[in-house]
């Protein structure tokens, strides 16, 4: 098993690149839902796959049921750098609130449809923003509903993640005048991380 580690400068650089990408996605989401979105500092860490679930800090209550939408992303230029899984985690109790932003009782779309749209905006804008800063381009699979009323453990401990270590980028979006928030989590496996670190080192060399 290779041990990946980030230096403080590399972590700081990745956090700032994520911060800019997070802001772009937050702006797109705010325009879509017509609500102000509060942003917090992105959390960057390298974790073993078995620890992914327990490493997520912003999930409101670990035991509460969540709704999870996922999308895979690939490097469109065929490089190993920057590929992995992106997921958006919503508390089950707050999911309806989000749909309410998109219309009144008669015209509002189905909750599932709303969550897929919101997830797609967050994932594509944020990751494209990150990719642009890392001088690469991405392609995406269609968003899929991974599970409803499940726990986060179910998502990450199902044996789906087949790598040793992963770079975890966690971004929280909270919607103003509600207690509703969602988490965008980007999970990138070992080989993807090595390419990202190489690019981050190039950026850091400019300083």
């Amino acid at each position, binding site marked *: 098993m290779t041990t990946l580690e980030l230096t403080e*400068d590399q972590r*700081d*650089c990745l*956090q*700032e690149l994520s*911060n*800019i990408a*997070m*802001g*772009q996605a*937050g*702006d797109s989401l*705010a325009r879509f839902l017509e609500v*102000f*979105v509060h*942003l*917090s*500092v992105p959390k960057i860490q390298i974790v073993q796959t078995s620890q992914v679930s327990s490493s997520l800090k912003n999930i409101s209550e670990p035991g509460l049921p969540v709704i999870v939408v996922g999308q895979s992303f690939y490097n469109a230029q065929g490089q190993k750098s920057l590929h992995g899984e992106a997921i958006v985690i919503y508390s089950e109790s707050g999911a309806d609130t989000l749909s309410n932003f998109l219309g009144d009782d008669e015209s509002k779309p189905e909750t599932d449809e709303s969550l897929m749209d919101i997830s797609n905006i967050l994932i594509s804008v944020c990751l494209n923003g990150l990719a642009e*800063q890392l001088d690469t381009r991405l392609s995406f699979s269609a968003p899929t509903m991974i599970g409803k009323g499940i726990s986060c453990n179910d998502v990450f401990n199902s044996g789906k993640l087949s790598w040793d270590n992963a770079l975890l980028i966690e971004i929280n979006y909270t919607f103003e005048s509600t207690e509703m928030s969602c988490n965008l989590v980007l999970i990138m496996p070992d080989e993807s991380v090595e390419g990202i670190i190489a690019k981050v080192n190039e*950026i*850091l060399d400019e*300083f």
Partner: protein
Amino acid sequence: MSVYNSNQNPYLSSNNTSDVQSFMAIPLLICDDSSMSRKMVNRSLPKDWDVEVTFAKNGVEGLEAIRKGQGEMVFLDLTMPELDGYGVLESIKQEGLKCVVIVISADIQPEAREKCIKLGALEFIKKPIDTEKLTQVLKEYGLY
């Protein structure tokens, strides 16, 4: 076009009655949790701008520096641990601290800008910072 030259601008020199003071370097604070971002802002400053730069890595440190007079001019990030940029702006207002704040943030929602201006920020610049844009804003307000 700049209406004021750097010794006459209404933002930084309102209490400046001494000629000696007018030629002193402006205490400038760069408050951002990211080390890379602090360096980027510092590197984007006009090369011949006479400033004495102090760095702070969160809102609490930033406020302390402003209270100590190290931030007559402040470049302020919004999303920070301990105390965010909105909290810093609120405290500056409440405590009546004399400083000019330009927010430099990745939170590009139009409402984020409005909130900052309402809380007393002079201007809002989007990240990633554009050197020309920063110089243009500084000139526009007669700060440089």
